[in-house]
């Protein structure tokens, strides 16, 4: 297979791998909070400061950022025709997602402190 033929495969696979993780994580959080625990401030903080939950939540946001990048990129490539506008919007979306990632890191550090 040529390199060009493989060009679209990586985002396609990333989209599916992140989708599976997002699905499992939402299921875990929904079941945990809806059926087994009451949603109180102390319990919420305790849950969020737990190391494994911090890692799982970080992976959730990382997956979501990657997943949205591929998805929104596809939408922009489909509907925005003018080249410069398309480039600008893609750049804006990338900044938006990277910024969101840093924001999450800041919040997780607030919890630990």
């Amino acid at each position, binding site marked *: 297979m040529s390199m060009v033929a493989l060009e679209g495969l990586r985002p396609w696979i990333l989209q*599916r791998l992140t*989708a*599976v993780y*997002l*699905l499992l994580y*939402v299921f875990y959080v929904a079941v945990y909070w*809806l059926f087994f625990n009451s*949603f109180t*401030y102390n319990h*919420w*903080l305790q849950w*969020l400061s737990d190391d494994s939950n911090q890692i799982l939540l970080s992976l959730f946001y990382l997956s*979501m*950022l990657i997943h*949205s990048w591929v*998805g*929104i990129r596809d*939408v922009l490539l489909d509907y925005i025709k003018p080249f410069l506008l398309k480039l600008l919007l893609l750049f804006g979306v990338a900044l*938006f*997602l990277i910024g*969101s990632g840093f*924001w*999450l890191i*800041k*919040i997780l550090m*607030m*919890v630990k402190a």
Partner: protein
Amino acid sequence: MLLHDRRPKYLNLFKIKLPIAGIISIFHRLTGILLFLFIPLSLYFLQLSVKDASSFQEVTALMHYPLSRFFILLIVWSLLHHLLTGLRFLLIDMEFFLDRKLSSLSAWVVVVIEALLMFAVIVGLFL
């Protein structure tokens, strides 16, 4: 002239009748865009919820205002729809539901499960 250049174009959106699989697929895209826009708001609420006990109360109190209830339902529905149709797409990738009847049937199954879950959400959140 190439064949695809001579195909008739008929793009009146109000006259195109999409099959159910097509409709839920369009909504997969729409809800995806909504969820993308919700990312910063989710971070804002996450930050507020960990700041202190009173900010946490503010976030949970959102469930009681009619307008915020509407947005909560919109986001929960977007998430449910996106996840369920996404799961169906993953199964299609694994070559399930390829036949036209099964494609339609699986789309209807998604709609029914979604309606039941939304009913449960409305009962659970507000009643």
